[in-house]
């Protein structure tokens, strides 16, 4: 496959691995921020191919995992309303709310539809004027432009029956949160290539300054990840802490200015609760007042009780890289993808699910 096969070349992979081995002289902990990178690491078996000095720590960049419980409960509540069509990205459907997930809401008769693009939700709203169409707009900066565009489109079309249930989160504050945690010891970061495709690299310079850690903007194919790791290791061994761009074939220094314009037309930065973690200041987007009619949290009076997370789930420690999934006492026991205690066991990008599926630690699956 063009533009992919090139980045999965086994010979080049070997060379990168050798180069990492040749460069590394001491133990380093590197966090891959994005769940897509976690997925690539485990799916391609990279973790076991790395020299023992390099430990990969899986970061908080799984949008499914960090979407707060009460928001999932809200989505489920909306989905079960008679006149609502709830549209969502696929992997949100299995994430547990406090009593059920969206798949179960669908089974109970909720009109829940899996979409790839929020723009399709706008089309559904146009085609179903007597229904309220709500798009569950989750994700990092990557999905924000398309979600914003859906609101802009609905606004321009004068649609009264379209809204988004937004739960956008931002990468740089999450890195800051990880670095501020006394229990986490991260030496360097692979930043999320697709987030930077939208936002550019400028937000990372202050982090590098403040925490003296290398941050390498990295892609998702095996060779991308290996090269990103090599670049971080080279910096660490040379006592450098800089922002570098491994994913230069996609990521421009300034990012995608058009996309940023769309984001800030519709959204403004706000404090955001991260599931399993805490409220991180200025770490998410909310819909601006101008577009309040398209904000499902304002449009619908959703009164549900604030639910408690399952106390047995250690998602927070996992997402900050303090613990590995296998260090959780319930991993593969009480907590399995078929019966997850927390979100990281659900999404294919969740660290726990990735370990569960690909590590062979649990025999019966």
């Amino acid at each position, binding site marked *: 496959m063009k533009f992919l096969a090139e980045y999965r*070349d086994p010979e080049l992979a070997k060379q990168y691995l050798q180069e990492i081995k040749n460069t590394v002289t001491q133990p380093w902990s590197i966090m891959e921020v994005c769940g897509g990178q976690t997925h690539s690491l485990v799916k391609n078996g990279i973790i076991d*191919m790395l020299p023992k000095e390099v430990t990969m720590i899986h970061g908080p960049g799984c949008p499914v995992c960090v979407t707060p419980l009460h928001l999932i409960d809200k989505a489920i509540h909306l989905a079960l309303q008679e006149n609502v069509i709830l549209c969502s990205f*696929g992997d949100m459907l299995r994430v547990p709310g406090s009593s059920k997930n969206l798949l179960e809401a669908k089974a109970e008769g909720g009109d829940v539809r899996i979409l790839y693009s929020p723009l399709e939700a706008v089309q559904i709203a146009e085609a179903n004027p007597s229904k309220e169409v709500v798009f569950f707009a989750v994700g990092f900066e990557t999905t924000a432009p398309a979600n914003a565009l859906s609101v802009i489109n609905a606004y321009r079309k004068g649609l009264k029956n379209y809204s988004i249930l937004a739960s956008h989160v931002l990468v740089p504050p999450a890195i800051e949160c990880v670095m501020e945690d006394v229990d986490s010891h991260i030496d360097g970061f692979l930043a999320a290539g697709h987030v930077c495709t939208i936002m550019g690299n400028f937000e990372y310079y202050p982090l590098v300054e403040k925490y003296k850690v290398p941050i390498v903007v990295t892609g998702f194919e095996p060779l991308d990840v290996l090269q990103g790791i090599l670049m971080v290791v080279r910096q660490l061994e040379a006592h450098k802490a800089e922002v570098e761009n491994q994913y230069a074939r996609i990521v421009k220094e300034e990012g995608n200015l058009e996309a940023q314009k769309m984001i800030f037309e519709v959204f403004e930065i706000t404090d955001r609760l991260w599931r399993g973690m805490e409220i991180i200041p200025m770490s998410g987007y909310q819909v601006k007042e101008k577009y309040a009619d398209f904000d499902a949290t304002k449009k619908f009076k959703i009164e549900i009780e604030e639910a408690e997370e399952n106390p047995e789930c250690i998602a927070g420690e996992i997402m900050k890289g303090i613990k590995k999934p296998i260090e959780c006492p319930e991993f593969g026991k009480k907590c399995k993808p078929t019966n997850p205690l927390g979100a990281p066991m659900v999404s294919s990008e969740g660290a726990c699910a990735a370990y569960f599926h690909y590590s062979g630690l649990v025999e019966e699956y």
Partner: protein
Amino acid sequence: MASKTKPVKMQLQCPMPKLDFDVITLGHGSGGVLTNKLLDSGVFDLLSNEVLDERHDGAFIEMNGKLAFSTDSFLVSPIFFPGGNIGELAVNGTVNDLAMCGAIPKYLSLSFIIEEGLKMTEFWEILTSIKFACEKAGVQVVTGDTKVVEKGKGDKIFINTSGIGTIHPKANINKNNIKIGDKIIVSGNIASHGMAIMSVREGLEFDSEIISDTTNLNTTIINLIEQFGANIHLLTDPTRGGVATVLKEIAMATEIGIDIFQKYLPIETQVDSACELLGLDPLYVANEGLFISFVEASIADDYLKYLQSDANGANAKLIGSVVNEHPKQVIMESAIGGKRVVSMLPGEQLPRIC
């Protein structure tokens, strides 16, 4: 849920007789005049054979020796998809399940559960596909049933087929015959059927030329059995759950280890790209006209060559082997040489956010 799907071009393969109704209504499943009208409209003519023509409560058939018997229900949405429709799928599915037992499929039962409102032209097209699929596979529909449910209680049409066939005398297909060293051969490109369906499903439509691989495999299988007999240890078709799920099921059931290699997995570029775009793993995507063989290592090369000379096996590949290590587990070597476990999915494969 209302379904609005990308239309798939439908062409009537047989002229439809003139009828005084355009859509199927509840009355067509009542057993009364309308049912008879529907059946007499051509169902019996289309599928006509001596046994069916008896039109008794059940079929009178005669068979000798060891038999295989299988059943399957078909609920694909949309019912017409690139490369086929639910009718031929229902025939091929059961025919192939029998073939995987080493049987020569002979008779089928055919049951429809129709949602009222189904267009008669669509039903006719499905019926003609069934007719042609039966002819191609050399099987006869000998008994059947038609029920109609209210609008909203079905998804246009559900079909159940059961089939029966005689086990080929040279066949000895059994999970317990699998042994360490066996070679694992997949008969063609993986994931085509699932992605063909996905490409026309509401909300996920994308432009592609991916077509379903649905076809009957019984002739191919019988030829292989004639040629290689008991050296074929197991045959299985990786339909729902894809290649990964069947391999894992076999590893679990037989307590053997399985090694496969990503670089040998045959997949069409378009299908591979579509899976990439949607964030789906082709190893878990459904197949229809595909089968996996576990064969004695000493005949594997000959078997592969023989299979590749068959139209249903042109893209066949040896993808791995049965090993002593890691019992109950399937391990795949990734394209870059890393290793990972292949496990079952907790449910339907869901497209990823980004």
